[in-house]
């Protein structure tokens, strides 16, 4: 990067400037979209921390030190220890893996099934559309937590139930957005043209119509991600998701509240981690909405 331009270059004056310009442009671009940049950076950092948990943590999340329980932070353990003398930082880093994995699975499941439903109902309409619409109304009638409770009742507590519950609760959003978008696009000339050249219907839906919905769908994914993290932790906190001794943020908070008197920091850190992750994901979602959906008013600045 710091290599000097070769002396024999045809345009020695212009070469370095041209080389620097993309970087400068990128910096300026990122500066204008600071919420997106900060959010993406924070999410990336948290993902890296989760991936490198084994290396960053210094010690495994399940080793107990019964002689050093509920240690305060900034001692031998950076974030202190829990009621079994396990390292809180290590448990949080490993817990990030589960939360990120489960939320990603839930959002992807909702995005794929929801938009598939929305695309097909919007395209075909008719009885199929009204039937699917009714079913989505029914799903909408259940608050997320109740949907989770109902699914846990059938499948038993655990992360798969949680993923399914979050996916079922976010599915209607994807279905509604893609359905109304496709109804608006269906009659446009380029779709007619695709019909005219004899393109098969699946091709028209996936290759012709779907690319026009990618923007709003990406925004929904990033905002849905924030909700998924929030609910994943909530379900585990309630005892419906991951079970102790799994290192998971909601599980940690649930056991930490019994030690609020002796060790308030123990309850502080896992919740702060959830907050930071959700906050960053919301920043990303907001930034993406400003970027990809210029019709909507920006939320951070006056119009």
């Amino acid at each position, binding site marked *: 990067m710091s290599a000097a331009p070769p002396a024999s270059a045809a345009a020695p004056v212009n070469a370095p400037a041209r080389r620097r310009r993309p970087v400068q442009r990128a910096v300026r671009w990122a500066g204008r979209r600071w919420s997106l940049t900060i959010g993406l950076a924070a999410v990336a950092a948290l993902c890296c921390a989760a991936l490198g948990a084994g290396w960053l943590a210094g010690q495994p999340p399940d080793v107990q030190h019964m002689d050093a329980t509920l240690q305060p932070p900034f001692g031998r353990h950076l974030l202190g220890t829990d009621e079994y003398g396990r390292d809180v930082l290590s448990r949080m880093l490993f817990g990030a893996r589960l939360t990120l994995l489960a939320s990603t699975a839930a959002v992807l499941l909702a995005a794929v099934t929801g938009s598939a439903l929305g695309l097909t109902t919007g395209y075909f309409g008719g009885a199929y559309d009204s039937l699917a619409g*009714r079913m989505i109304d029914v799903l909408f*009638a*259940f*608050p997320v937590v109740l949907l989770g409770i109902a699914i846990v009742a059938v499948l038993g507590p655990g992360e798969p139930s949680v993923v399914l519950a979050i996916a079922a609760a976010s599915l209607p959003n994807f279905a509604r957005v893609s359905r109304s978008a496709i109804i608006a696009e269906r009659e446009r000339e380029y779709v007619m043209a695709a019909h005219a050249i004899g393109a098969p219907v699946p091709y028209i839906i996936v290759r012709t119509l779907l690319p026009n919905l990618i923007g709003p769908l990406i925004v929904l994914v990033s905002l849905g991600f924030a909700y998924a993290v929030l609910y994943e932790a909530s379900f585990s906190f309630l005892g419906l998701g991951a079970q102790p001794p799994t290192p998971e943020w909601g599980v940690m908070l649930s056991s930490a509240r019994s030690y*609020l008197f002796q060790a308030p920091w123990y309850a502080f850190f896992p919740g702060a981690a959830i907050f930071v992750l*959700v906050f960053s994901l*919301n920043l990303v979602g907001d930034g993406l909405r400003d970027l990809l959906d210029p019709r909507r008013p920006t939320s951070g600045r006056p119009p």
Partner: protein
Amino acid sequence: MAKYLLWRSLSVVPTLVGVSVLVFLITYFIPGDPAQIMAGSDATPDVVAGLRHQWGLDRPIYVRYAVWAASALRGNLGESYFSHMTVLQLVGTASRVTVELALLALLIAVVIAVPAGIASAVRPGSWFDLAATAVGFGGLSIPGFWLGIMLIYVFSVYLRWLPAGGFAPLSDGLVPNLRSMILPAIALGTFASTQFMRYLRASMLEVLGADYTRTARAKGLPELLVLVRHAMRNALIPFVTVLGVQMGYLLGGTVITESVFALPGIGRLVLNAILNRDYQVAAGIILLIATAFVLVNLAVDLVYPVLDPRVRLGRPTLSQ
């Protein structure tokens, strides 16, 4: 108008039928044989078969749904396997806590959100607007159960001002009751409050940029009158819709809040029912809450054209 009201009211019927089918299917697919649970683990197969016949569990699934739905319509939602109280009795006691909690949370949310949302829309880009937006963004991202735990730490453990949990009914007096409810209501209402604020700010900005606001200013109306009579009236109408949607989140959120603050409400009832495998109670409560949510949204949609005569009446579309 009457046609719209009728059409919208009837449109909840299929939704409610779907809700009841879903809840019934949940109880149907729950692992474990209810007859075996009732009979106990050391009962002979004959006894279990007798119980199964007696409770109609050997009949086809659609007959069982019809019987269940018919008794639910008459208000019979079954009884707890453990306490042998009927679901309605259990819900009746617990709903006092939950309804008070949800209403208090809603009140706190509105009291904070309406002035904050309007003030930041009146001076967009001001320090107040930026601070309110930032705080709102934080409130949107904060996990309610963590906020609850932190409130308990600050106000109960550290400052010792308020009880850390438990419920004091109104019969104990208003002050003890409110002391036991204020922290849960704040923890529950924060999320709704930030939603309200963001929504109100956006709709106020829209209204303040409208031509009739400019006209009102141009004819020399005092700014306060412009705000209250011209802008707020119109900005608050869509707010009713958000209110209805948030009511559902509040009802769901009470499960978490009641668990954090050890309040004996519906949320804790349904959570404990699931954790104890008391499925009749769980199914009954889920059905009740989902129905309540559908009806609240129906009420919102019915009130809407009264508040805003401009809305196009007719067959509402799926895309809201």
